[in-house]
């Protein structure tokens, strides 16, 4: 958080006592933070419960928390097909919810990984060479294409297995990463480039030793945004033959008008995304300690 006002937090002091109090302060801050999150979450849950309780929204669209919880539990356990029936099925669509999640996570990991691995070098190249002039319209074209419109082609080329889904996620991820990289490159301070060139850096060395690190903050933001995109795309990717897969499950449940399961899947998607993003944010913090300072 940027400090607009008030005094900044005092930095580490040398004496052991003050260091101890500092650690205590940090722990207190963390606790406060947790309390704030807990309170806001509780408020939200209460609001949800009230809204459904008072009948403001019909359960077809927003079922009460209890129903969603039931759907969540059912989806994670072996359970009878209907109350009283002795036919026991496993989770939903023969997979537990966490297995669906895992399957999607795998796809996202590969898609995002590929997108980042291509997006950064491509962005660097496009930001620093004439390739940018040639490729920019195509990149813009690509990043505006609705996945629903071209998933058919992907299926023709890559089949209905995981490959086409991963490609779709990849195609969702790599343009924003490339864009962020290009934008970061344009923000690199000219004199930093001049400095490294005067030290004898070749084109490539200037790229890796200055442009890349200087661009890192924006690239990391780009990766975070792109990972968010990947999550939003996972349903589209898993509409066709997407079981196991949390997006496929959400889609099927939606088709069957089983709103509690849809909401449970969405919540799981959202929570997984939050966890993933926390990790990325952490990475950002440790990789770019100089932000705002130089």
């Amino acid at each position, binding site marked *: 958080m940027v400090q607009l006002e008030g005094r900044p937090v005092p930095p580490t002091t040398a004496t052991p006592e003050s260091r101890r109090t500092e650690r205590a302060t940090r722990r207190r801050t963390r606790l406060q933070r947790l309390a704030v999150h807990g309170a806001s979450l509780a408020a939200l849950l209460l609001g949800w419960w009230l809204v459904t309780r008072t009948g403001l929204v019909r359960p077809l669209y927003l079922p009460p928390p209890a129903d969603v919880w039931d759907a969540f539990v059912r989806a994670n356990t072996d359970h009878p097909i209907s109350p009283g029936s002795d036919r026991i099925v496993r989770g939903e669509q023969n997979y537990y919810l966490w297995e669906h999640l895992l399957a999607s996570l795998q796809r996202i990991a590969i898609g995002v990984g590929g997108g980042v691995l291509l997006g950064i070098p491509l962005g660097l190249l496009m930001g620093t060479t004439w390739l940018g002039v040639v490729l920019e319209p195509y990149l813009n074209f690509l990043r505006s294409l609705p996945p629903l419109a071209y998933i058919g082609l992907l*299926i023709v080329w890559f089949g*209905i297995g995981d490959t086409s889904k991963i490609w779709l996620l990849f195609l969702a991820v790599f343009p924003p990463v490339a864009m962020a990289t290009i934008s970061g490159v344009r923000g690199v301070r000219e004199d930093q480039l001049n400095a490294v060139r005067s030290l004898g850096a070749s084109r490539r060395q200037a790229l890796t030793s200055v442009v890349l690190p200087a661009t890192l903050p924006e690239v990391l933001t780009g990766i975070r945004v792109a990972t968010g995109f990947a999550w939003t795309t996972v349903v589209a990717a898993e509409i*066709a033959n*997407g079981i196991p897969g949390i997006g496929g499950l959400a889609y*099927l449940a*939606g088709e*069957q*008008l089983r709103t509690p399961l849809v909401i449970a899947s969405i919540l799981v998607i959202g929570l997984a995304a939050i966890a993933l993003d926390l990790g990325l944010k952490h990475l950002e913090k440790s990789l770019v300690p100089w932000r705002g300072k130089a």
Partner: protein
Amino acid sequence: VESGRSSATNETDAAQASDCPWEADDSITTTARIAWQAIPNADVVVKDLGLLEACMPNAEISWVQAASGGDVVKYYGSGDVDLGLMGSSPATIASSEPVVRDVDLAVVWIHDVIGEAESLVVRDPEVIDLAGLEGGRIGVPFSSTAHYSLLQALAEEGLDPATDVEVINLDPEKMPGAWQGDQIDAAWVWDPVQSQLLEDGGTRILSSADTAEAGRPTFDVGTADRTFVAENPEFMAQWAKAQDHAVGLIQDDPATAAESVAVVLGIDPADAEKQFAGLSYLRAQEQVDYLSRSFPKDLLTTAGFLLDQGGIEAVGTPEQYAEHVDAGPARSAVGG
């Protein structure tokens, strides 16, 4: 750009389109919102010819396009439509727990009984029956009438969809690609994909006509909000009359009807006319018979299937399903 433009390209055409085949009723001032889907049946003919607008010049009619029956149920829930077309599966879901708590519909019309329009097409010419597909992979759009028919056929054949064959969820438009890439061995699907697969060397070994014969028919039905029906009997009568007229047109003058379908679906009239053959259409009298006799039972059997699929929580009583069928409007169109 305003939405809801009619098919007429200019004023003169509009005038031409607005001839009511019987005496128009200016006394009806109902506001009706109708959800339609791109399926070749009388509903789109009514829409294209502007029959409702012509026969009820003072009613306010708006057409809302929906991509699936599930959409239509949701539209009902949000109070955005008064009438809508959907497959028999969503109609059953809408009449069963838990969704029945949120919407209050009645099936008032059978737009079509699905026959060869939805059928199982297999790649391997050697395969001549379902048993031959054992160990194979069949694509079908889940939660559709085709899905229902496929699972019924499998059960009939004694095949377990969980172990003996692999049934995967696949949108029709993705099937040709999967088919060409050797990804599926068979697909239960409708047009235009069905024709495409047949053209690509597939053979039709089963169709919804067969499952219907076995007592598991599938339909596209017209539904209406029950309160709306109760409050607007004259409108419903005119509506049913228009539907009946369009059915007559399909049966007696398929070329004209096909043109309307072609306009709405954006396809070739010849293709549209071909598609009529895969569906059977019922005149008003047949509607009355069917709706008041066997249709509630069909809903019940469908419900049993949906329970297995996890689509509903419990199968309702026969009375409950009968309550959600209303042959009234069809009856008022008989002989009209």
